[in-house]
């Protein structure tokens, strides 16, 4: 199997509450994997375990295994900063820093000590091109990122992730703050990005998962109810609960 990330028997507790129950997941390389399910099903929690964002939440306890290219990311010697560089994240609401467009994109480089202006310029151009922003923004790189419209802000956040050359991009409801046209643009961008990156997306929007993902996992109350090729999950799901959810009968 051509897996970038393999999750096995993952249990996650917030204090005494068990949010994930023996969850399995295979994230295929250069494919889009969508996690769907009702609020509170554990999909965002699962996403955040993939680059150890949950480490920042007090009282979290994790059992099981998550392998990135065969290496356990919860191993004692794992460099968490390096991990988050390899597995980047785009959040629900665009969260550009209150800096210029250029400084947003080069932020990760500067943190890593890269001060060479030529290198930075090249990264800015490539990253903005990768996020379909270069043509619109190349003449205003010193403008504040906060002045951009929402969808450009969100794509700038994608560019900021691309700048550190990740292998995997995690996206947590990346379109929920966007209108349908901006959403369509992000979706097309994701389809373009998957030729170079592995993408995992959490979405409330089932249709979005159907449109863009190659694999879908349906989660309910901390269980991975069904996981498989998206075409199968949306045309002939095996589990009655998945059937009810994808056909809009859930609840």
């Amino acid at each position, binding site marked *: 199997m051509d897996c970038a990330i393999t999750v096995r028997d993952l249990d996650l507790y917030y204090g005494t509450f068990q949010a994930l129950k023996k969850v399995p997941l295979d994230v295929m390389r250069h494919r889009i994997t969508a996690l769907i399910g009702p609020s509170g099903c554990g999909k965002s929690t699962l996403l955040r375990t993939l680059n150890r964002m949950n480490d920042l939440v007090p009282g979290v306890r994790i059992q099981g295994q998550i392998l990135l290219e065969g290496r356990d990311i919860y191993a004692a010697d794992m460099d968490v900063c390096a991990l988050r560089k390899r597995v980047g994240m785009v959040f629900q609401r665009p969260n550009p820093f209150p800096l210029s467009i250029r400084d947003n994109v080069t932020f990760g480089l500067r943190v890593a000590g890269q001060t060479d202006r030529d290198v930075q310029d090249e990264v800015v151009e490539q990253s903005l091109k990768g996020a379909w922003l270069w043509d619109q923004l190349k003449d205003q790189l010193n403008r504040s990122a906060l002045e951009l419209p929402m969808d450009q802000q969100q794509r700038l956040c994608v560019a900021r992730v691309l700048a550190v050359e990740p292998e995997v991009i995690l996206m947590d409801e990346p379109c929920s703050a966007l209108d349908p046209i901006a959403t*369509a*643009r992000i979706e*097309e961008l994701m*389809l373009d990005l998957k030729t170079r990156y592995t993408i995992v997306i959490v979405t409330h929007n089932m*249709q979005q998962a*159907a*449109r863009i993902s190659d694999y879908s996992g349906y989660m309910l109350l901390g269980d991975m109810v069904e996981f498989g090729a*998206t*075409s199968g999950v*949306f*045309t002939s799901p095996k589990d009655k609960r998945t059937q009810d959810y994808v056909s809009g009968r859930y609840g």
Partner: protein
Amino acid sequence: MQRHFDEELQALKLQLMKMSALAEAMISEAVKALMDRDPSRVQTVYEREKEVNHLQVVIDEMCLTLIALHQPAAGDLRFILGAAKTNSDLERLADLAVNIVDEAKELMEQPPLKPFGILPRMAILARTMVRDSLHAFVNREPGKAREVLLRDDELDQLKRDVTAELTDYMSRDPSAVSRGLALVLVARNLERVGDHATNIAENTIFVVEGRDVRHHGG
């Protein structure tokens, strides 16, 4: 904005064009097998039917997946529904070609009945209707589709004429009954070929204009 979805619609269209070409060629080969008493063409039709059957499954699967995953609307939705319906018509056309060569094979084993009379005219008309309806569907030409619809009445009339002609012939020569009946069946199959071409033409108008012209509607 160019959509990835458009590439998938294009892929569906290419498969339909492939199937159209096969079905059209099968009708053509079947008619030639009959007229020229050519057994090699019989075999060609049988072989192509397998390909058509395979494509039917592939195209249905594509339509199902496109609808389930992309929630198509308006022209995209009509195209996918039209493609699924045309897919069924193409598969039926291929079956009719097989029916015709089944009869042709039987007839080849017996002496020729007589000059075919008006059956060749019927075969040519049916074949042309298939070709034109598929051309109209693939190239989105409702005008051409409407011409096909007008020709169906003529085909039905020819079928009645062929049947009358053969009935008369058989009543005068009882030894010709089995061959005559085989040709009546061929005529009936050709008439059905026209019906499927008509369906495809109606689908074309629905896909392009959003207008349902079946049963003299629209």
